[in-house]
């Protein structure tokens, strides 16, 4: 079909343009950040005008929004959800606690840095980030997609070994299916 480099480039641009304007977010409120998602989605801030809308199941979603701290119990589910998602897929870390633990720095049950366990494309800082910053996070993600730089999923596949080691360190009882993504 398309073999030469230049036509591949054009296809990429069209693909990225399309992906950039239909960001479907998985409806999974993993932490307290889920409270600012309804205002972002409803009439005042209306994220749908940017193509951002909710998706009910992982297989239909493009973006996994990690709304806040992850306890080890949730991390296990989140990894499963992430691996079920189809390419292209992106991860947004939402809130200070995904970046460096935030106020839960000495808690025995939450992870302190999300990007050790799964690839993160965009971080939104603040506790709680306002809907405006959520929107700017999505805008940043769109920019990265357009530029072809949102390659977290690729990174995850290439460095799966490293991610698995980190994941297994905090999840003692690892029995999860391998997904054929």
């Amino acid at each position, binding site marked *: 079909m398309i073999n030469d480099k230049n036509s591949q480039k054009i296809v990429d641009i069209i693909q990225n343009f399309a992906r950039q304007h239909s960001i479907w977010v998985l409806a999974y409120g993993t*932490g307290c950040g889920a409270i600012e998602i309804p*205002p972002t989605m409803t009439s005042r801030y209306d994220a749908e005008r940017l193509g951002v809308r909710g998706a009910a199941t992982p297989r239909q979603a493009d973006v996994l929004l990690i709304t806040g701290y992850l306890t080890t119990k*949730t991390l296990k589910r989140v990894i499963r959800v992430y691996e079920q998602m189809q390419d292209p897929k992106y991860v947004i870390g939402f809130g200070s606690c995904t970046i460096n633990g935030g106020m*839960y720095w000495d808690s025995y049950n939450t992870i302190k840095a999300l990007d050790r366990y799964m690839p993160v494309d965009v971080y939104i800082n603040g506790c709680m980030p306002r809907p405006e910053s959520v929107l700017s996070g999505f805008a940043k993600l769109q920019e990265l997609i357009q530029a072809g730089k949102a390659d977290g999923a690729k990174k995850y596949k290439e460095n799966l070994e490293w991610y698995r080691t980190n994941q297994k360190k905090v999840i003692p009882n690892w029995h999860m299916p391998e997904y054929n993504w």
Partner: protein
Amino acid sequence: MREKATTLYIGPQHPGITGNMMVRVKVEGDTIVKATTEVGYLHRAFEKLIEKRNWLQSFTLLCRFCVPEPDPVEESYARAVEEIEGREVPERAKYIRVMVLELARMASYMLWYGGQAGSLGLYTVGQWSVGDRNYILDLFEELTGGRVYHMYIWPGGVRRDMPEGFEEKVLKTMNYLEKRLDDYDDLMFENSIFQKRTKGIGIIDKAKAIEWGVVGPPLRGCGIKHDVRIDDPYEVYDKLDFIVPTHEGGDIWSRAQVRRQEIRQSIRIIRQVIDKMPGGEFYNKVPNPQKWTLPKGDAYARTEAVRGEVGMYVSSDGGTHPRRAHFRGAAYVHGITLLENLLVGENLADISAIMNSLGTCPPEIER
């Protein structure tokens, strides 16, 4: 013919579940025969961390206990600390606190409108009510600096005084919201789908309600008139004139009716509070928090939140840090033992509506 029983896992990733929790249901056909909840996905060890913080530092953690309505938790803790120490609260602070609590109640109810209607497929209500909720959050932002987390109610009063011209803004917002509430009613309560899917579903047995520990709107939806604001009045609720609405039936519809009337009572309370607001001090200053010690003792303070009674047990060993702060949210009872009871015999499709009507709030259960 008897259907074969199947086990289904609803959650934690499920759009209909109110937050990050799981319900394991055993179904025959689509009738639930057994329900088990599994919680703990949000356990952040707050109560452990509070033991490592001093009395004032705890407040940053406290408001994150229940995210949709953080103020009653702060209020309960602040009142428990005041009871242990015997600290006086200025009259003006009491009125401001009541205003903040009622605003938080309204904001939380408006989120509930969206959740309850959304669980039955009426998405427009959510677009309206959650959008209008932003007007209340704007007021919070001006008053406290934060949209969601306020850390505003402190031992000895409130953190700062009301800004200039704030009363007028509150009244203006109330006038606007009062008009909008009628629109929500037309859209939601007049809707025949909403009526059909809520009447006679998720019925709480009136005779057992108190014994099961049902509190708040679910209890008043059974026709039992109990409310912490009148039973065990705190702040200045005994000086205010308001009605505690009840409704017979015990089903989702009656709980919705109770909330529909209660949000109007909140507007009434806020108007009275602004009318009666006294001048003077707003904060009875606490000493340097690093050195501030409380006498040995314990206290339990209860507050009426939208989900029902929330209480905080605080124990002090005479030091600068709390010995123990244990929180009891209404969802602690509603979300586990009551929910497991209520779901039996119901339809699989009604899980989401029942959970929303009970106001199940997982962060409150798990902390």
